[in-house]
């Protein structure tokens, strides 16, 4: 479904990711592991079209999307939920969600259906629908960010560190929801530092280190890989 072929991104003279090859099949939940600055977010930005790669190509459903603008990539079905959440903080929860359905704005009933689906996934958002996004707690904001991304009906949902800064109990809920979204048919690409939790729900994973993929394999293989265990699971 998605294939990165020898993708490199540079910020000035600094190479953020180098010759990254990643493949995601339809229906999979794939996780990118790695510490801060390893290149996960840069990879996401390149896929979303926010950063342009200096080398390599990105194929989505067989077609190159590397030259497409960010809004066209969203239209094609790749939606990112970014690490900083990037909500419209002075808009209400429901306004944020409706804005998430921007690419489907003409199909009013479809937007309504997506909205009730998101409220069903995250009942707290319905409760707080007329509050401003900025007034929500960190966990609720993260739910809203995921909900807003789902409103665009992505074929591929990219989640950048959804567990960052959240209480352990909330993290657990968050991963349950991500698994549910995946089970209901959305392909998910997840970037995480929380390797243990992420590998439990993922099919496969890639480990990033200083801008390159160093280990790849099924979740089972990664969970039992000594280097991965040492570096990211701490056992």
């Amino acid at each position, binding site marked *: 479904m998605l294939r990165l072929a020898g993708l490199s991104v540079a910020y000035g003279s600094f190479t953020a990711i180098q010759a990254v090859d990643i493949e995601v099949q339809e229906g999979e939940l794939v996780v990118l592991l790695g510490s801060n600055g390893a290149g996960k977010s840069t990879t996401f930005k390149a896929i979303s079209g926010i950063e342009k790669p200096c080398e390599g190509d990105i194929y989505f459903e067989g077609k190159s999307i590397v030259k497409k603008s960010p809004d066209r990539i969203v239209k094609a079905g790749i939606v990112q939920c970014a690490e900083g959440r990037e*909500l*419209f903080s002075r808009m209400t929860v429901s306004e944020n969600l409706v*804005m998430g359905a921007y690419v489907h704005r003409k199909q009013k009933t479809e937007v309504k259906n997506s909205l009730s689906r998101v409220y069903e996934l995250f009942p707290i958002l319905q409760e707080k629908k007329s509050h401003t996004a900025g007034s929500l707690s960190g966990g609720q904001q993260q739910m809203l960010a995921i909900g807003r991304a789902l409103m665009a009906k992505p074929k591929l949902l990219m989640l950048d560190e959804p567990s960052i800064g959240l209480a352990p109990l909330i993290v657990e809920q968050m991963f349950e929801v991500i698994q549910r979204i995946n089970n209901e048919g959305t392909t998910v690409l997840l970037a995480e530092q929380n390797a243990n939790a992420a590998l439990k729900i993922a099919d496969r994973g890639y480990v990033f280190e200083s801008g390159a993929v160093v280990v790849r394999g099924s979740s089972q293989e990664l969970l039992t890989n000594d280097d991965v265990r040492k570096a990211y699971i701490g056992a």
Partner: protein
Amino acid sequence: MDILTQQLFNGLTIGSVYSLVALGLTLVYGILHIPNFAHGALYMLGAYVTLTSMLLWNMNYWLAIALSVIVVGLLGVLMERLVFNPLKNAPPIHDKIAAIGILLFLEALAQLMWGADYRSMSTPYGEVVNIFGMTVTMQRMLINIGAIVVMVLLYLFLKKTFVGSTIIAMAQNRKGAHLVGINTNKVAMLTFLISGALAAIAASLSSPINLVFPGMGHLVILKAFVIIILGGMGSIPGAIVGGYILGFSESLGATYISNDYKDIIAFVLLIVILSIKPQGLFSREGF
């Protein structure tokens, strides 16, 4: 008492014009973070286009305003496409330099096309009427009512239409707007279109009570910057309230202090607001 009400009315009129100009400036700043010094030139061109269409083609005042709104709005879009969009990833100082460059260019162009003479614009609304014991011209009434109508329309557009909410979304979080698939180029062009249109309306309404000349935008744009600093950079209510505050202070200052110092009041206000509340009255809460 009589003088006071008369001056309050004058303040309202001047404030209406200031608010309209400041609104266009604050929209562009709030959404695209460009301090558009060339906005004063758009204001000046708005007046010239209206004047020319009335004199040269005998157009009706309203038709001339409509043409001016379209021409100057499109000029705003052109400015965004040709100058500011290519500078999107450049350091912010480049926007400022470019804006001043456009200002100088457009002023020189106006001087070339229409000459440096001061011209007056005639209006079909020259008659004097008596309202609540005040003697006012219809044109001044028109400025007040016109400004309020435009502001209400702008408010409804931003708050009640989907296109309007994409503008607000981009003002609040540009990256978030990218993520939901908003075409930020289109929003940028639309913002410049509205900004140019507002400048044209302000100039066309106020020219019959002022004069039209190539440098007419200078003081107006400087004051508009004072207003948006006063109201909070990028804040819409800030631009409106700030415009009226300046309008009232100027007309009252001109009466009770000295007419010669009227243009200084804006800058005294600027110093006061920067010392007391540098983030401005509204600090963008209203967007």
